[in-house]
């Protein structure tokens, strides 16, 4: 049976993605920070879907340890490993981060540098094998910087460009790179926040991710209408946009 590696497995979207793959009979390798949560997830997926699960401790904020935590699962899974899905995101507190370097670092390192470190390792692995897919969750926030979340947006924008370049490099090795840009999703990240609209469920997003991977898409907005919302938003001239309070 094919397997898939999920980085950041304990987040709600990751759980839904893992469930989606498990329901299609993929074995899972769940990588995340909390052993307690990983074990609970492993038990649950194995009981519900009857697939094999392996867990791996992985902390995106400690890139020095990525090689040692990821290489073993990549190698052990061998030929069966179909691909990797990176579901890591940290919205953080924009207001706090503006004055606090620790929070700024956390936002940038979780969403960008830490994620890139992990993706580099998986990229090299799949390039050697000359097959597979790498899917990462970016965000519509990266499409345009706006005052309420531009640190998060900047990190995700960086990630999107990195994935674009990676897609270009790995095309020649027959490895697919999929960029997923969700809009608002009903998770801890958005819970309790005001002024949200068109919030999607993690399950709907997970189905979209699975379909995008299976159908060989490059860049996917989830749900689909965000592509057009961001298209319009990007058309707004800067001299007008800078006056808005979005």
């Amino acid at each position, binding site marked *: 049976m094919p397997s898939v590696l999920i980085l950041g497995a304990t987040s709600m979207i990751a759980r839904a993605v893992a469930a989606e793959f498990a329901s299609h009979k993929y074995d899972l390798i769940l990588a995340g920070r909390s052993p307690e949560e990983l074990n609970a997830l492993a038990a649950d997926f194995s009981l519900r879907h009857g697939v094999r699960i392996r867990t791996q401790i992985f902390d995106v904020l400690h890139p020095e340890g990525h090689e040692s935590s990821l290489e073993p699962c990549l190698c052990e899974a061998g030929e069966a490993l179909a691909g990797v899905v990176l579901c890591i995101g940290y919205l953080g507190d924009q207001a706090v981060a503006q004055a606090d370097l620790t929070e700024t670092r956390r936002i940038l390192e979780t969403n960008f540098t830490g994620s890139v470190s992990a993706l580099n390792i998986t990229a090299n692995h799949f390039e050697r094998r000359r097959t597979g897919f790498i899917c990462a969750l970016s965000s519509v926030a990266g499409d345009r910087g706006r005052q309420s979340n531009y640190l998060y947006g900047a990190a995700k924008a960086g990630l999107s460009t990195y994935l674009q370049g990676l897609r270009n490099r790995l095309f020649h090795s027959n490895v697919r790179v999929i960029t997923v840009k969700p809009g608002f999703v009903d998770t801890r990240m958005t*819970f309790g926040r005001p002024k949200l609209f068109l919030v999607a469920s993690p399950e709907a997003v997970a189905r979209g991710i699975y379909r995008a991977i299976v159908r060989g898409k490059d860049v996917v907005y989830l749900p689909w209408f965000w592509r057009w919302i961001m298209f319009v938003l990007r058309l707004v001239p800067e001299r007008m946009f800078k006056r808005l309070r979005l």
Partner: protein
Amino acid sequence: MSATGPGFVTQMLSGWGRFPVERCHLYRPESRAEVAAILASGTQRSYVSYGLGRSYGDAALNREGGVICHTRLNRFLSFDETAGVLECEAGVNLAEILRYFLPRGFFLPVTPGTKFVTVGGAIAADVHGKNHHKDGTFANFVLDFRLLAPNGEILSCSPLDNPEIFWATVGGMGLTGIILSARIQLRRVESAYVLVDYQKAQNLDEALGMMSESNEHYQYSVAWIDCLATGKSMGRAVLMRGDHATAAQMPPRVRNPLAEPSRRRWNLPCDLPSVALNSLTVGAFNALYYASHRNASQQLVDFEKFFYPLDAIQNWNRLYGKRGFVQYQIALPLEGSDAGLVAVLERLARSRRASFLGVLKRLGNANAGLLSFPIKGYTLALDLPVSKGLVPLLHELDQMVLRYGGRVYLAKDAVLTAESFAVTYPKLEQFRGIKRKLDPKGLLASSLARRVGIVET
């Protein structure tokens, strides 16, 4: 979690009866660590757990306080196929358990009338089903559970390990701590069907007579009662009693006896206007329901239709419109229960308040749960739309129930007074003592707890 602590949404919440509706601060943790962090955060004065919101009144509400929703803490943790023991988080709901384990030949040993309740809720309300006379409550099949105490400690509770806390938490409406996970004993079955005997009783006397005479022969027994019928027909009922169908009893046309039968799902997309339900329309419905049933024996009925008839209609509570309804459920001790039931039904019929079919079940012995509802005797449950004069009527009924030595079910209640509660639940003081030790700061509280006087306001 943001740098500023666990996020919450302030919104108007209600139970299934949509009465009362209260402003609460709703949390939705996604991991166990988050639950502990919420309790420790000190952001709210108190908290109560919320599952799928199927309690009818304010048991899972906390006005201007914290409400912790468990729907994302819903993982299966382990399953021992030989012993039939499932360990799962408290947010797992009974529908999920059936979905994954009935195909493997396991059913719930005790189930309430809806499968959309969480395991945590089932323990906290100590739910019972159509088989209480034989099997008791849900707690009878809970081997143990892990409770997050208000001081942050995680306690393992069972009838042998911390038994005081176990029996305070069973039926304790979430007021002793936060149930994190539990191990439950599932029951082996050979099919997803029940073989049912239907019998009509022309009045309450006949119904009670039939139940006391032959309930012993059945695993499951329930009577649907017409609460609007008067005179000689008062309490006319349709008895539905049965047992799980064994593989041998299945007709050949059913190829896979454990497969979930395909069912049509209906949905009530909007609230019905309040004029729709009145004693005329409901009276007519009840009469039709009674008339349409015939005596029949050994009918093959799928488990959904027998155990969860209302679950087929999503949002059926909208039948009662925006004003909502109260489900009045009482238990009366065996001695004097016929007189008590007659008194209650008579008073209700006189009030001409529309109540769809009431449900009457025989109850077996009480368990050691301090605030557990079932006592040996009978339980009657009926729905009453909220309208002027309802609350005084219910208080009048409460007094009647009190006089007959019965009690009201907290999981359904929305109007019980503290005085009535204290008299009808004699172990309240014992419960308060245990709660005071476990939760000296009163971190766990609900609108129900304050209303019936379990905690100070």
